[in-house]
């Protein structure tokens, strides 16, 4: 090989290497480096100032901090009840928002909900299973915990487990999958009650301490979700179930069936009917990671003793992880504020907060945000002695993370408590057009 040919070969080789490096940089390195710079930006971004009208008598504090054990640094998915003169709070405890098969549900107790007064009283695990979204309910003195097991790396639970305690949260039965009676209506008009699992229960409530009602999302006619990801509850419907003992649940009616939905929360109106909110991923064009303008909240009102429903849409937020509660015959909610309306509702890379809303028959009215950022909401509420206590989780409040950053990259979260005066909340809602 002549010297000239060798030089040409080396020059050609050098050019190929250079082009390869450039292509790798453009396709692989630059997007990751861009994401890395966005993470740095999230680390240094300051949180907003949270100011509250003095009429609310707003107070907030940390109930459970993230702690130093990274395997338990993500405290999330709260619920709370007042039982036997004490507050009881339950939350998931994992390493991050994504699947953690070593995760558990932790129950804590406090006499007055103040800082430092919360003591751990029980822990619920299912071997090698990620557990989340626990809900308390006291049915005739028996304390039930309903929760959702998850078998997907990107969580998409599609059935409910339950356990219960007969000794005030000291000991629990072995968790079992809940099967509920669902009514299948066939094309020839015949109906059949089918005992089936595959329904995600949200928060049971009762208007009379005789019958408990819960909204549950899932799929009818055997279309139970498999282990593939649920694409933000696409094609699920929500049904109303009732029970008198917490073990046996039976369909009362189909509630919201139009677009895939979940996390439906209910409360009772002065006329005895139900008002409810539904988290809807999309009411039209699909969209998940980068959001969609068609994501939002459905407000449902029942009639004819819970058998018929009418709905309104609200696009200012998708009310994830909400708790509804009633004050002075008016319905309020604490849930996730996506800072909308926006054309990318649900965008994983956007900021989210936990917020108080008033729920009117046709819309939500944003009242105020709680100190929160990143991965946040999934609330519990107790109304006691003229005050509303709302527990929720959030990434540490000295940051202002986007949701995606807070769930997997910097997943330290804490459980916080916000307390407002009942009269103050009603007056504040009146002052910003929430009043009837």
């Amino acid at each position, binding site marked *: 090989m002549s010297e000239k040919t060798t030089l040409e070969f080396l020059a050609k080789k050098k050019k190929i290497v250079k082009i390869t490096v450039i292509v790798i940089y453009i396709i692989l*390195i630059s997007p*990751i*480096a*861009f*994401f*890395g*710079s966005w*993470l*740095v930006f999230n680390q240094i971004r300051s949180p907003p100032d949270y100011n509250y009208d003095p009429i609310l008598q707003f107070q907030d504090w940390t109930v459970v901090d993230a702690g130093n054990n*990274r*395997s338990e640094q993500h405290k999330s998915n709260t619920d709370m009840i007042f039982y036997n003169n004490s507050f009881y709070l339950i939350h998931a405890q994992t*390493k*991050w928002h994504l699947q953690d098969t070593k995760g558990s549900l932790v129950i804590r107790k406090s006499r007055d909900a103040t800082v430092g007064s919360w003591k751990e009283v029980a822990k619920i695990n299912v071997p090698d299973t990620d557990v989340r979204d626990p809900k308390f309910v006291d049915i005739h003195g028996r304390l039930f915990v309903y929760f959702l097991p998850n078998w997907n790396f990107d969580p998409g639970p599609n059935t409910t487990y339950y356990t219960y305690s007969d000794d005030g949260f000291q000991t629990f039965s072995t968790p079992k999958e809940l099967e509920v009676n669902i009514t299948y209506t066939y094309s020839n008009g015949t109906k059949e009650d089918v005992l089936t699992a595959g329904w995600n229960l949200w928060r049971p409530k009762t208007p009379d301490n005789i019958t408990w009602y819960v909204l549950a999302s899932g799929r009818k006619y055997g279309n139970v979700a498999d282990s593939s990801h649920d694409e933000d509850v696409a094609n699920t419907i929500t049904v109303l179930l009732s029970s008198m003992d917490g073990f046996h649940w039976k369909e009362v009616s189909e509630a919201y069936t139009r677009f895939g939905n979940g996390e439906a929360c209910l409360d009772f109106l002065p006329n005895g009917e139900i008002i409810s909110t539904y988290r809807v991923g999309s009411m039209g064009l699909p969209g998940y990671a980068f959001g969609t303008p068609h994501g939002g909240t459905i407000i449902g009102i029942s009639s004819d003793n819970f058998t018929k429903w009418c709905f309104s849409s609200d696009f200012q937020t998708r009310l994830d992880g909400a708790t509804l509660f009633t004050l002075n015959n008016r319905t309020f909610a604490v849930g996730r504020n996506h800072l909308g309306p926006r054309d990318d509702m649900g965008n994983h890379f956007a900021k989210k907060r936990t917020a108080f809303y008033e729920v009117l028959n046709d819309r939500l009215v944003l009242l105020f945000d709680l100190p929160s950022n990143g991965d946040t909401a999934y609330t519990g509420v107790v109304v006691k002695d003229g005050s509303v206590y709302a527990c929720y989780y959030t990434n540490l409040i000295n940051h202002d993370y986007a949701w995606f950053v807070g769930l*997997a*990259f*910097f*997943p330290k979260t804490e459980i916080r408590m916000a307390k407002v005066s009942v009269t103050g909340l009603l007056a504040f809602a009146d002052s910003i057009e929430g009043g009837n």
Partner: protein
Amino acid sequence: MTENKKEYRDESQEEITGANTNTNKKTLKSKVKFAAEVVLMIIIGFLTFYPLIIFGSNFLL
């Protein structure tokens, strides 16, 4: 070849000095360029590995 080298060596001293100055400038410029490239590589390397390490360390917990 030997003749050519001789010719180069016979260039005036002035021309040689001018060439040395240009060479020094070029050397300095290439050093600065090299240093800038190193700094850029460090920054890009950090920004590339930062998310991978953070996510990976949580994943492996």
